[in-house]
Structure formats: C-alpha cells, structure tokens
C-alpha cells in the first residue's frame, strides 16, 4: 500500500536561500504525523509547499499516488488536502458562518455543507453562538477553532495544521490539542506542525525533527518523546 502523502527529497528556496534542503517523509491514511523544530527550521515552508502556495525547486510530492508539485494552490484542496495556516488567517471582516462556508467553497452538496456547518458548531459551540459576528472579533483560541473548523469543511483526506497552539493561553492550548486528539480518534489523517513538541509527540504516530531545512531525526512519537537529545533540545530538560 502506498502512503497517502509521499514527500521525496523536497527542496524549497526563497530566492537563493534554500529553506528546505531535501526532506523525505510520508503520511499513511489514519496517521498523525508531526514535524517539530524551532523557528526557521522549514516546517511552515514545507506545509505551504504541500498546499501549493510555494513552488518547490526540487523533489517530488505525491498525494494519493499523483504528483502534486505542479498543481496550482486552488486546485489542491479539491484533491482532499486542507491546510489550516500558521497564524490562523481567518477572514477577519467576514462572519464566522461565511468563514466556515468558504472552507466548503468547492463543494456542491448543499445538504452536506449544512450538516457540516452544524457539526462544526457542535464541535465548537462558541462559534455557533457567534455565527453572525465578524471573525476578527474572536479571541485567538476561538480563531484557531474557526480555522480548524474551516479546514474541516472541505472534508479533507489529509488535514495539515500549522502551529495550532501558537500564542494561546495554556487552557486554550489544551483545548486545541484535545480537539486534535479527538480528530485523530475519529480517524482523520493529520500532518501537524508544532513548536509545542511535548503535546505534538504525545499525539503523533510518527514524528520528524527539523533543523535548518533538514530532517535530523525521525521515529514514532513515543520514541522521540523519550529520546535524550529531543528532550534536551525541545522539551526544555537538562
């Protein structure tokens, strides 16, 4: 069986500066895979390349066996790959409901969309209470819920979450990570980028540690969680 997503020797550059220097990894259906590492390691660049916002200078991306690196960004979500971007990027001057519906922009099954909007409100009741409010008025954690809800509206086969816990209070961070765990339990395939390595590894089937554009260490979530060098570098232990 081939993996849902296969990344092979991927290279991405901003001008002459290579931000991703040839990484390879794969995500199997039903798995949670995480990329961890400090700022500037190339995690966000990797996700933005997978969703077509950046074009790779080398390597291959295959999604469901088909090459992805020549597909324009707006056609990628249609293939089943949704991206909840770093910094949330909700549409601030549109209502919460319009934000959610934009997540289903390419879907034509109106009944299914209605059902999924209701489902998003059940998952995140606060969004339902404020559905007619401009999304920019939400708190950071609520915006993160909206961004995740919006990404799920496309019914993705692979959900990419970029730093969902960034800048959130510990309570809100816990809530967001609980939601990721819940999605995993429901069988959603997730590629998770996190700086909160502890939380990400605890959830993940597989983890990859990135440093300046390269994957320096890979293993199961539990292995990495107990790896001495990872504990020192990313989990704040001496």
């Amino acid at each position, binding site marked *: 069986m081939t993996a849902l997503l296969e990344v092979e020797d991927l290279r991405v550059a901003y001008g002459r500066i290579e931000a991703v220097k040839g990484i390879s990894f794969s995500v199997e259906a039903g798995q949670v895979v995480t990329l961890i590492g400090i700022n500037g390691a190339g995690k966000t660049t990797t996700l933005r390349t997978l*969703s*077509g*916002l950046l074009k790779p200078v080398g390597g291959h991306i295959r999604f469901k066996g088909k090459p992805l690196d020549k597909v*324009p*960004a*707006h*056609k990628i*979500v*249609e293939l089943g790959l*949704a*991206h909840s*971007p770093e910094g949330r*990027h909700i*549409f*601030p*001057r*549109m209502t919460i409901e*319009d934000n959610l*519906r*934009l*997540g289903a*922009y*390419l879907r034509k099954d109106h009944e299914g969309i209605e059902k999924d909007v209701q489902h998003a409100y059940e998952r995140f009741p606060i969004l339902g209470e404020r559905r007619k409010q401009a999304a920019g008025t939400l708190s950071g954690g609520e915006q993160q819920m909206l961004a995740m809800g*919006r990404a799920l509206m*496309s019914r993705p086969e692979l959900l990419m979450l970029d730093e969902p816990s960034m800048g959130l209070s510990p309570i809100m961070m816990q809530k967001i990570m609980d939601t990721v765990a819940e999605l995993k339990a429901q069988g959603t395939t997730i590629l998770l980028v996190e700086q909160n390595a502890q939380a990400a590894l605890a959830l993940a089937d597989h983890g990859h540690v990135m440093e300046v554009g390269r994957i320096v260490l890979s293993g199961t979530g539990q292995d990495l969680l107990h790896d001495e060098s990872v504990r020192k570098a990313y989990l704040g232990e001496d």
Partner: protein
Amino acid sequence: MHELPQQLVNGLLLGSMYGLIAVGYTMVYGIIKLINFAHGEIFMTGAFGALTIYTYILPNGTSLWIALPLMIIGGMIVSIAVAVITERFAYRPLRNAPRLAPLITAIGVSLTLQQLVWAFYPGAKKERLFPQFGGSGFHLGAVTIQPADIFLIVAAPLSMVFLATFVMRTRTGRAMQATAQDPDTARLMGIDTERIIVIAFAIGAAFAAIAGVSHGLRYGQVDFRMGFIAGLKAFTAAVLGGIGNIYGAMLGGLVLGVAESLAATYIQHIPGMSHFGGGAWQDV
C-alpha cells in the same frame, strides 16, 4: 440662496458619476493593492464604445431611447475588453514585482490608451459630439432635471444595489471578499484568485462604461482626454471613502460632487474671493 437645491442636485448627479468610476479604483485596489491609473481611460473607452454603437452600427436617426441600452452594452463590452486585456498583459506579469512597477505600468497604460484613441478613432483628434436627448428638462419645485440626467438617476442606484448584492450574497462575491482580505488563504479555500481579479477589473470597467455614457449624455461630447480629470476626481472620491471600500467609494463620489458643485457656485460670494470666477474652483 435660491439656487441651492438645484446645485445640490447637480452635485449629487456629478457625484454619482464619480462614484461609479471610483468603484473600479476601489475594487482593484482592494484585491491587488494596485492604483489602476488607467481606469480613467477605461471610462473614456466605454464612452467611445457607446458612441461607436450609435454612430457606426445603428441606422441613422435611431431614437436615443432605443439606442441607449445597446450603447450601454457596447460601451461595457469595450471597457471590459480593454480592462481585461490590460490586466492580462500589463499587470499580471508584474503580480509579484515590487509595488512601484505595476503603478508605473498603469501610468503607461493610461497614456497608451489615450494615444491609441487619439490616433486611430475617427475624428478623435478633437472632441466628438455625443448623441443628445431632445426636449427641455422637467421641473420639480425649484429643481430642473435634464433628460440626460434621468439615465444617471436610474443607473447609479441600480448599479450600486447590484454590486452590493453581488458582493454580499453570491458565492463569487464572498470569494472576492476573501481574496481582498487574505489572498493566500483564499487560495487554500480553492478560490481561483486570478479569476477573481479579472472579475474585479471587469465589474469596475462595466461601471466605468455606465459613467462614460452618462458623461457623454451630460456634456454632449467625448474626447480622448476625458478620462484624466474624471479619473483623478473619482480616485479622490475612492480615497475619501476609504480605498478598498465600495460603499465608501460611492459616498466619497457624492461628497466630492456636492462639494465641487457648491464651491463653484458659492466661493465667488465669499468676501475677497469675488474676482475668482466660480468655475475656476470646480477642479480644485
């Protein structure tokens, strides 16, 4: 002060024309952050497109009432074609260039379009007469409304209602809002932002064509430079209303039109200003 109501109405009419043009500046700016300096020329080519329909396509002596809808359609087709072609070949290749590059290009496009009309449109080296409605205006109290203005009174509000409905209620309209607010994330939703940009140019051009026709009807003539002053004022209106905001553009147009009309009438009555003719102030 007996001319005040009349001047207010004149100002509102003039202002709704500016507002129609301003919508084009504001929509394009809202989405690609480009001040399309060639938009005044889109307005001008729309007026010439309408003139072409009347003069060269329709049989001589067609009633203007019958001709007008066809002239509007013709003007829109020309404006939209010019806008879409300039977007495709002048602005799109510069999409990721520094902001100054498309801005300078827009000025070049503006001059090019003026000179093309000047050089190739028959008789456009000087003003060309635009068809006029016959008959005198009708009176509403102290206010006289010219037949030429009835078009604008109907067209401007209708256009704005259409635009507001389109942007707020349709799927493409919401995609347009999303693209204006966050283009990269809009693409993640599956929105083809290049297509949205073309639609924004096209709607702005259609509105400019309506303004171009009403300009021709009001002033009785069109010329290759008409887009410069009108475009400048409409740009001012767009900035006044908050550039990127379509309602603001219309409102800014109205405010500017009324201010211009009142200034032209009353500044000469301010003590010490009497030696300036009123008309001297209208373009300030």
